[in-house]
């Protein structure tokens, strides 16, 4: 091990407490962010015409109907479940942004990690004068 090893400062209790809180605050913020930003999880599109609450209108055959009823549902209670539809519209700008964020994240993490890793290896194994083949 290198004699000139890095000696980290000792962190006091209050600092440790604050650090734990910072991470927690960021977690909660990211959980709430989609709501605050107006985006919702699992966005669904309203059907243009709501069918009347009958099994036929909900396109449930007799077997499906029997299973729904065994599960304790009526056409009225089943309607919001059956008519819930997902929208899979792709917005090029938001898809591009998402890809860019993920790529930038990994690029940043790997780049900084490599710099820190060299420091760790140099301290653990000693500084290298030349590059290994």
């Amino acid at each position, binding site marked *: 091990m290198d004699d000139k090893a890095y000696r980290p400062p000792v962190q006091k209790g209050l600092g440790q407490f604050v650090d734990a809180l910072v991470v927690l605050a960021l977690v909660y913020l990211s959980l709430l962010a989609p709501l605050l930003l107006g985006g919702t999880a699992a966005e669904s599109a309203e059907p243009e015409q709501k069918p009347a609450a009958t099994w036929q209108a909900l396109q449930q055959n007799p077997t499906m109907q029997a299973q729904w009823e065994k599960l304790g549902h009526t056409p009225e209670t089943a309607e919001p479940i059956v008519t819930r539809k997902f929208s899979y519209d792709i917005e090029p700008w938001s898809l591009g942004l998402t890809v860019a964020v993920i790529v930038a*994240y990994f690029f940043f993490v790997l780049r900084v990690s490599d710099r820190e890793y060299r420091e760790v290896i140099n301290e653990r194994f000693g500084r290298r004068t030349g590059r290994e083949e």
Partner: protein
Amino acid sequence: MGTTTAATAASGKREKIALLKVLGPVHVWALGVGIVLVGEYMGWNFSVAKGGAYGALIACWVIGLLYTCVAMIDSEVTSTVAAAGGQYTQAKHIIGPLMAFNVGLYLVMAYTMLEAADALVVGDLLKAVAAQYGAELDPRPFVVLTIALLAWLNYRGVFMTLTVNFVITAFAFVAIVVLFLGATGIGGGGSVLLHRELLVDLPYGWIGVLAALQFGMWYYLGIEGTCQAAEEVRSAGRSIPLGTMGGMMTLLIAASLTWYVCSGLIPWEYLGQATTPLYDAARLMGSTELEVLLFIGTLFAAVASANGCINDASRAWFSMARDRYMPHWFGAVHPRYRTPYRAILFLIPIAVSFAFTGLLDQVITFSILSGLLGYTFMSFNIVRFRRLWPLGSIERGYVHPYHPLPCIVLGLLCAATYFATYLGYGTSLLSIMAFYILVSIWFVLRRYRYVKRGEQFTMPWPRPKGY
């Protein structure tokens, strides 16, 4: 008792305590399957809502391939880096500190949020059963009680924790097999399955199948937790690959049986939003015995998963704290029970609060995405591992075949699953990525100053090639 590592003596000096190597492949299997099996009892079925019943089946097998790659890669690295902290410790030795910090957080977030979802299942199941008998039940006390009891178990010792997990996981798996035998008529009587009448075409086409990949992860999410046992197995080179791959095969079988029974009994629209689909399937079969069996199976699966999650999340948090990646106070070991008790206790109120946010979708997405980020890390971790220490340069417990095919497949399937997450939860995905970016900047600018440098590298390996 198999325990974790260091104890902090009163003098402040740290004494290294070797772990007891008492576990075999069966224990590794029990740990991995225990965390994951709840995914068959709840959660996987949200992929039915995304892409229909056939879409969910395709997602089950495609994501099964993703996890097979994870298991192959993880088996090689874990059997060589046989240390507490799992993938966090691997990242520390192979990629670097910031990646390790992120991987540690992936583990803590994925497991703590999965634990919250598990406890919610326990509460919802009790509420549903009470409603069947005309009673109203507030599930919240049961959610808190479940987490508190399991935390107490974890606090008291890892041996009892994993022993309990083995028993209840085995029961939950057998319950699925019995339900399958009953539904198909193999176990006597005729088949009650109605696939011909209940199955419909892909409701959203192939884009729905892609979208289903996100919740398809629920079938297997957490199998990589087997590596948390690496320091306690008698032979890491034998037990980790056998236990992990055996666990994957078990889960593939359980997932296929679950899909087959549920899609043959439950209309897909109902199945796509059901809280406890296997229990609902048992109800539809009209057998009180099966209903009770699946009620207990669902309960046990959720409890086993929450139990394993507390075990793994606390160890990841503890490992980071021990290295000062997180506040060092959490890196203490209980002087009597030899458990990371501060980490266990700290994560209880956090898991409870996740359960009560009312943002279950967001919490589950956070858990899934944290897992997915971890699998993405594995795909380039193995490439770098082979490059820095080529085969023959260090002793490997296991060498996975066909390299680099598994890591290429893993990378491609991870990309497809990011796209699936974008389709369903695009805003959530960005907000979760923002979390990991902000917390990474915080680590670089503030936290890393408290971390010792050379002491992080603890494996008895030669200098990495190229460094």
